[in-house]
């Protein structure tokens, strides 16, 4: 594969990761106390958990299954979606049966998907709790983008001629750098695509463009550019 395609591919992968992270319902510390909507952990932890599962499934397909590249990317996406889906489901089981709160969003009056009334069920003093349907769907879509982004990074690094183990390691670093940029843009909690914070996405895309572009250029220069010191 020619170097320019790989650089553009890596930048697209970075942007997909950033979009994915913005769609995942992250509640942070408030959600851990059932005081905000989303899963009760940080953006980076959730995104990394989902992204790395995608990387593992994509890596298996790439090396052992002998299928076209689109299948590899899709399998990465499905790995991520499964991981995040299970996380959100188990999170909901704990919120509903353990804490005893209904999954509800505080950012919208009616759930955009089920049309269920939301504001009546928000406990006073909190910003929603659990993972309501709209956030769950948004999270699954986010994991789809994040998984494709992670898998694309891994595949492109392999195409550069970097060994599989090192590719996986660089892909993890690349994923984390982009996930952290998205996390800084979100600054705390986000419920999904219906959250007003989702409108900040373009800024994160620009910053991801810069950082992913730099990492992609130095990677390509060192492996296929023939630059040696």
């Amino acid at each position, binding site marked *: 594969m020619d170097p320019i395609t790989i650089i553009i591919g890596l930048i697209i992968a970075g942007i997909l990761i950033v979009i994915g992270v913005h769609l995942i319902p992250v509640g942070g510390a408030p959600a851990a106390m059932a005081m905000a909507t989303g899963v009760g952990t940080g*953006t980076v932890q959730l995104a990394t958990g989902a992204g790395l599962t995608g990387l593992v499934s994509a890596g298996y397909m790439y090396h052992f299954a002998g299928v076209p590249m689109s299948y590899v990317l899709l399998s990465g996406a499905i790995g991520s979606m499964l991981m995040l889906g299970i996380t959100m489901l188990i999170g909901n089981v704990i919120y509903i049966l353990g804490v005893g709160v209904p999954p509800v969003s505080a950012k919208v009056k009616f759930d955009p998907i089920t049309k269920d009334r939301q504001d009546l069920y928000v406990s006073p003093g909190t910003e929603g709790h659990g993972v309501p349907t709209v956030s769950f769907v948004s999270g699954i879509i986010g994991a789809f983008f994040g998984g494709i982004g992670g898998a694309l990074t891994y595949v492109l690094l392999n195409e550069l001629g970097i060994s599989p*183990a090192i590719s996986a390691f660089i892909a*993890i*670093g690349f994923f984390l750098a982009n996930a952290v940029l998205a996390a800084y843009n*979100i600054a705390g909690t986000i419920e999904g695509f219906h959250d007003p914070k989702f409108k900040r996405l373009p800024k994160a895309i620009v910053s991801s463009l810069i950082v992913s572009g730099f990492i992609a250029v*130095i*990677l390509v220069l060192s492996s296929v550019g023939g630059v*040696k*010191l």
Partner: protein
Amino acid sequence: MSAGACSAKAGAVEEKKISNNLIAVLGIVGSLAGIYVASMFNFLAFVGGVAIILATLWGANGVRTVAKYGIGTGVPSVGMVALGGAVAAVFVGIYLTTKTVLLAPVVALVLALLTGLLIGISARYILKMNIPVMVRCMTEICGAGALLILAHVATITGSFELFYLRSISETGIIMMVFIVGALGILHPYNACLGADERQGRTLKLALATGSAQVVLAGIASLYFLGLPGIITILFGALAWFVTYSIFVKTSFEEGIVFNTGLIPEVEHK
């Protein structure tokens, strides 16, 4: 021990602050020296442990400076970016310098600093995070992450050449380096944060988390180097014991005892 006396003591130790520049110089020069010495002779591999400890110290100080502003995403995300941003730089640094191997740590450090600078500038001016130290700290944290990975590689394999980097990746030990390194950098501030957080105490914990990493690097190095790995383990264990006891002692000294509302035992007498 009364609450008043303790807070007075905590107030008294507040003034002493180690300058960030001093720690940065110590982190860069000390770690690079440690990495070079460790790669000279196998039996000196344990000196790489000093590099691990100093790089952790530098990174933890950077995390402390930036996370004090309340980023809103949690301290772990700041620590993970250290290693995440540095990984590509380390590999590129070593790939680029196959002709002059000795340049590898310096090139890797420079590339990691550049990656960190870009992350910092993006966060400060594009994402509009209102944190003045963002650019400097992201640069420092990524640099520390690169030195930390290189120090681990040098301690575990006794070299930082491409061949050893490949073998450390293919055995999967690099994943241990990644997670343990990130935790070592993010844990000190994450554990100490709060209203009475003090630089001295946080950095003492950073020394302890650095030393704990040396023990793990020593165990991994048994596979690559054999006997010199045992020296690394002993060195790390000793350093961990000393630094961690100092940290626990400081924590007890600066802790504040609050009466719980139960009648104090003194009044029974």
